[in-house]
């Protein structure tokens, strides 16, 4: 290959890196200060592009000058920054006290809402933006033509980095951002107006995302899929760089830009997974990213978020569980479709329960739990379609497959902690997804495989429902038992204080690894049951959206409750099933439902249930006191 071509390819990589950095820098700043993993960052990016394709052409009507173009881009960024403020004031400010994961769920609700609002406001057709006046042409670099606009972009990244550096060093706001990134408690202690700081940070973060989107309009059309296509890249950049580190994000963006530019020359089909392989490799070697700092959580002085002290069910709990079980058994009396939905709820409940076994009980937050669900489904499905085995052995293989891959990935995952651990689970899930997606000969690629139907005796909806009910309820009871058993207690102990657990003789890593494997096996079993209920398997069963669904379920249910995951799965699926046939804009309603639930029940349904019981106890006491008072009266 000629060297002038390599140079131009490197320049292409630099231009992508710049774009990536501008977008990801906002995410890393917001995380550093608020510790919120802001899923809505991609939505701000998309809004930046949409606002820009709306106002920039309008400005260019007056005069086709580069200045007006860039004024429009900046105005778009500021407008999106204002939307960030709206989100902070209307939503995040109300939930800073709720667990971090709930904030994540709320931002996910925002993603769903923005997707549909964009469709409503701008319609479904992609909108091309104008090219930048004065930068429309190609520039000759030796005999290769290179877009002038991309040359310009190459300088935008370092310029934004420099401006952020100045901001961080020379303004009070910037100093506070740095302080908060290093130690959040300290800022509170210094008497800083935290609300103002967070509002300002969200403005900055959203404006950077908007700038990232607006700068892209000469290259790509504004389209309703932009948000999800960039959010994973943004996560990867911030994680590789070290969460909270702006220079780290810059470094990571450079790395990824070059990797993409030259990766397509060597492995043209690996684009799907290249960045995730890089992320996994970086995290295995450097557990806190390139320039990140270890999280300072040697020992807890506050209660962990999750299952605290599991107790046997009280009377109300027993009644509720019995009612739920009766409902499951009685569903076939209702109607055929209810049976179908009921079967799915049971499967999802098991998957969610297994996730909460990790998150709630073990403090191991997995963003990639669907991987084990999907691998279980593939384990079962491949045995049926490729080996010709019947359903029964395939259902045995499902947890084995889920557990085996959980053991493989978990070996590396449990070496990390916190958000980095979560991101490594995401990376592994994406790698598994990519393999299943691309290994067409075995897995059928993205078309998946069909013909995964139950054995004849279980073929009817009703029998399969009862089979699923028997298996999932047994598995949930068993997992619940494990939570109450020494193994479950040990995982909680390690979550509360790893040094303490270590000092009493517990091999923390090994127990976490076994816990991860067990949860993966349970998810795999759920996946196997799911495959037979649908008749087909495909890569979406391993995808990030399903992982996010599982997380949403356990958060809606309440991660501090043992059985909350079951309630969460039920409500989440019921809400989705209710709105989907009702309207094309079901995502809007799903998102609104999620946010409403986060605001009304900040500790999930189980939390609401506890509140209700407390309220009832208060009323009961009041009533007893009244009666006593009445009895004393003559």
């Amino acid at each position: 290959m000629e060297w002038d071509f390599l140079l131009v390819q490197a320049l292409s990589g630099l231009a992508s890196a710049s774009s990536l950095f501008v977008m990801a820098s906002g995410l890393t700043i917001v995380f550093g200060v608020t510790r919120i993993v802001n899923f809505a960052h991609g939505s701000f990016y998309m809004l930046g592009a949409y606002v820009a394709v709306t106002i920039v052409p309008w400005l260019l009507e007056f005069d086709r000058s580069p200045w007006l173009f860039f004024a429009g881009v900046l105005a778009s960024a500021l407008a999106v920054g204002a939307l960030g403020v709206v989100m902070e004031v209307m939503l995040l400010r109300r939930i800073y006290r709720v667990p971090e994961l709930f904030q994540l769920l709320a931002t996910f609700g925002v993603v769903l809402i923005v997707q549909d609002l964009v469709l409503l406001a701008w319609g479904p057709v992609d909108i091309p933006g104008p090219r930048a006046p004065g930068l429309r042409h190609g520039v000759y670099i030796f005999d290769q033509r290179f877009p002038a606009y991309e040359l310009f972009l190459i300088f935008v990244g370092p310029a934004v980095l420099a401006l952020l550096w100045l901001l961080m060093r020379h303004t009070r706001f910037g100093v506070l951002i740095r302080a908060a990134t290093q130690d959040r408690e300290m800022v509170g202690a210094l008497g800083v107006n935290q609300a103002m700081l967070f509002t300002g940070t969200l403005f900055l973060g959203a404006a950077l995302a908007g700038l990232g989107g607006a700068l892209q309009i000469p290259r790509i059309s504004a389209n309703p899929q932009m948000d999800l296509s960039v959010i994973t890249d943004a996560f990867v950049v911030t994680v590789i760089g070290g969460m909270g580190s702006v220079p780290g994000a810059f470094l990571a963006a450079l790395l990824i830009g070059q990797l993409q530019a030259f990766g397509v020359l060597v492995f043209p089909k690996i684009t799907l997974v290249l960045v995730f392989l890089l992320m996994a490799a970086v995290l295995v070697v450097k557990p806190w990213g390139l320039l990140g700092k270890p999280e300072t959580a040697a020992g807890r002085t506050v209660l962990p978020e999750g299952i605290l002290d599991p107790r046997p069910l009280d009377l109300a709990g027993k009644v509720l569980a019995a009612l739920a079980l009766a409902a499951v058994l009685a569903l076939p009396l209702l109607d055929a479709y209810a049976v179908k939905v009921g079967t799915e709820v049971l499967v999802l409940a098991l998957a969610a329960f297994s996730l909460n076994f990790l998150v709630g009980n073990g403090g191991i937050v997995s963003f990639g739990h669907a991987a084990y669900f999907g691998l279980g489904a593939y384990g079962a499905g491949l045995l049926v379609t490729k080996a010709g085995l019947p359903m029964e052995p395939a259902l045995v293989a499902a947890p084995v497959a889920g557990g085996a891959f959980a053991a493989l990935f978990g070996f590396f995952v449990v070496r990390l902690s916190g958000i980095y651990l979560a991101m490594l689970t995401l990376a592994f899930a994406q790698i598994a997804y990519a393999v299943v997606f691309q290994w067409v000969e075995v897995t059928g690629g993205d078309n998946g495989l069909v013909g995964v139907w139950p054995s004849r005796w279980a073929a009817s909806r009703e029998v399969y429902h009862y089979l699923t009910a028997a298996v999932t309820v047994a598995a949930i009871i068993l997992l619940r038992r494990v939570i109450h058993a020494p193994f479950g207690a040990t995982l909680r102990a390690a979550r509360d204080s790893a040094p303490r657990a270590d000092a009493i003789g517990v091999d923390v890593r090994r127990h976490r690894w076994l816990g991860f494997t067990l949860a993966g096996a349970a998810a795999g079993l759920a996946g196997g049951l799911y495959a037979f209920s649908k008749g087909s398997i495909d890569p979406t069963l391993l995808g990030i959206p399903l992982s996010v669904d599982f997380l949403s379920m356990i958060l809606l249910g309440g991660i501090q409750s043992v059985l909350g995951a079951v309630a969460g799965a039920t409500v989440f699926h019921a809400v989705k099933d209710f709105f989907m046939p009702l309207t094309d804009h079901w995502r809007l309603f799903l998102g609104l439902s999620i946010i409403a639930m986060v605001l009304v029940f900040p500790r999930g349904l189980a939390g609401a249930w506890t509140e209700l019981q407390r309220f009832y106890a208060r009323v009961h006491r009041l009533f007893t006191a009244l009666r006593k008072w009445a009895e004393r009266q003559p």
Partner: protein
Amino acid sequence: MTLLAVDRLTKRFGGVLAAKDVSFALNVGEMLAIIGPNGAGKSTTFNMVGGQLRPDGGRVTLAGQDVTGLPPRQVCRLGVGRTFQVAQTFLSFTVLGNVQMALIAHHRQTRRLLANAAAMHREAALALLDRVGMAAQAARPVGELAYGDVKRVELAIALAAAPRLLLMDEPTAGMAPAERAALMALVAGIARQEGIGVLFTEHDMDAVFAHADRILVLVRGEIIARGTPEEVRADPEVQRVYLGHSGTRAAARARRAADG
């Protein structure tokens, strides 16, 4: 009889020498204190003995067995219990649950999947809590306790491993003066009664001079003096660099208390 032998332990952090050729021995049933100013390398030395840090050089021998560089969980299995500078307990558990957990770990039952953890080792756990005076609060969540009581629970947790050696990193840090004396008396009583060796670091000179059998003085990673409380108190070098006036006063108070 030597329980713990530490031979020329060395640890560097970047360019800083946190511990340099630290050597000492601790006998069965003996209480040995390490004192020194902040940053002298007390916690570093401590964590190398407990397994939390791997030394760059030197050896740690426990009852004749080389334990250098072993992870904490294995050090624990060889009969070493420890408490931390900032108490480490399982915050989501009850007081009783914390000790039960430690007993479950001690009996290597942590991988049991079906037993009911809450019903295991109840009596033994209550007995341990009784020894540290916390039996009455067994059912309370550990997060609700006063800090002094948390330290007692931590002691019970450490004792659950039936240790031959207790490592206590600033056992009285963050406690009220009255609580400190009571806790140290408790530790000393248990140690003497059961022949457990205790290695502790401490800032509170009253506690050190009242209960230590011997004292090591660590300054900038090196031991500058060692001996009985009297010998250390009398050491002019120690007086100059570390103890100063308040230390001498505390030593005198301790002597008066011992004589009286």
